[in-house]
């Protein structure tokens, strides 16, 4: 089970949170011009990264605020949390699948 750091409340047990998938997917602004292809890609297709993954979490049973987490999906190692609007941190030395396995 994960221990997640809420940027406002600090480290808490994972059961206080819920995960809402890949972060930094910007909603297209020119929606009236989008083709079915582009809509489908925006709504359904994901990077599903094996390695460093930037994802959205909500502190449901706490402050109820959204934030982002950088986590390695191969090892479940969490690099850190950051507030919405902040740029995704660059992970210098990711523990890559190769390094871990």
């Amino acid at each position: 089970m994960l221990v997640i750091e809420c940027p406002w409340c600090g480290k808490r047990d994972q059961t206080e949170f819920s995960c809402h998938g890949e972060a930094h997917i910007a909603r297209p602004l020119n929606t009236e011009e989008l083709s079915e292809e582009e809509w489908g890609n925006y709504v359904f297709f994901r990077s599903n990264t094996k390695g460093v993954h930037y994802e959205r979490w909500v502190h449901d049973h706490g402050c109820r605020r959204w934030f982002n987490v950088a986590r390695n999906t191969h090892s479940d190692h969490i690099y850190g949390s950051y507030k919405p609007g902040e740029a995704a941190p660059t992970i210098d030395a990711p523990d890559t699948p190769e390094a871990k396995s």
Partner: protein
Amino acid sequence: MNRYSIFSLIRNSVNYHQDWQRAWRSPEPKKEYDVVIVGGGGHGLATAYYLAKECGITNVAVIEKGWIGGGNTGRNTTIVRSNYLWDESAGIYEHAMKLWENLSTDLNYNVMFSQRGLLHLAHSVHDMQEIGRRGNAIHLNGIDSEFLSPAQVKEMVPFININCRYPVMGALLQKRGGTARHDAVAWGYARAADALGVDIIQNCEVTGFRMENNVVKGVETSRGFIGAKKVGCVVAGNCSVLAEMAGFRLPIESFPLQALVSEPIKPILDCVVMSGSIHAYISQSDKGELVIGAGSDTYNSYSQRGGFNVIEETVGPVVELYPIFSRMKMLRQWGGIVDVTVDRSPLISKTPVDNLFFNCGWGTGGFKATPGSGNVFAHSIARGEMHPIAEPFSINRFNSGALIDEGAAAAVAH
């Protein structure tokens, strides 16, 4: 290949079972194959078997990075059923069910397929409406399903607590549903495919695809390049990784899904009981263990282990529904990575790369479809055009909008 029979059993008993033939070879990879299947799980081995048996293509290799059946084929809760809502799903799962019913004979390998009956419990008015709608839809597709009252559920499972926190208000029964021994399915398909000339290459990881002018020419592996006229990827847990190697993305996210088994006990539960709304899936294996399916974690992961909170959320409802199990010890618990699509239906599809086919995204319930999935995928690869049963499961449905939404239909019950 020597056939298994009562006579071969007697013949081998004379030699204290020292002379049984190996069930399949471990050949060196050839330079090129007509078809390379990536992934030696149940679906991949079934694909190879039907390519050789029904499509006349025997120059086939199955490439597996670990050992065959070591992924989700060996990690599921062995449940087989075909009671799905949508016509497309009924098409493929019932196709699989019909193949299951003759599979042991077909493969000359006992897959211990047991049609012991499968109950899906309803615990609320909404559940009752859901099974009402789904049960009638299943009827219209000519598949067996029956509605049971709480009293009839109690008759089938006398020790169930129907007056639990969320009382049992009814159930949907598929009598032809049941279980099969998952390892035997992989081994049976491997042995039968090998006998028809398929090369099964284990401990060989695919590291990339070789492509020329957007046509796949083979796979780069940890044991060198293997050429292929066509490639079929039948992997669970890593399909997005393979897709990335080929230069496209999939409408899939991967999550850990857990299961656990108890200590073995005397026969007590002679059917499969599923409850989607309180999330308790339980059956008893022939060894006597209770086999319990837990839920999936909600975050993406390739770690093959899930959170302990999921175990707690699974065992709680099981004990509430079956107080008699409250003091049982759980012996093993494990996780596998499931590739989930938004509509909870699989991808059996051509891809943006010519002659490269994908069969993946079976999410939390692919085992039951193993024979049907392999069968239609083999025909699709052989013809270069998707089999009519497989056609609706194209990747393109996420762009066209023609989803097969079993996610909304049956929620987590897969």
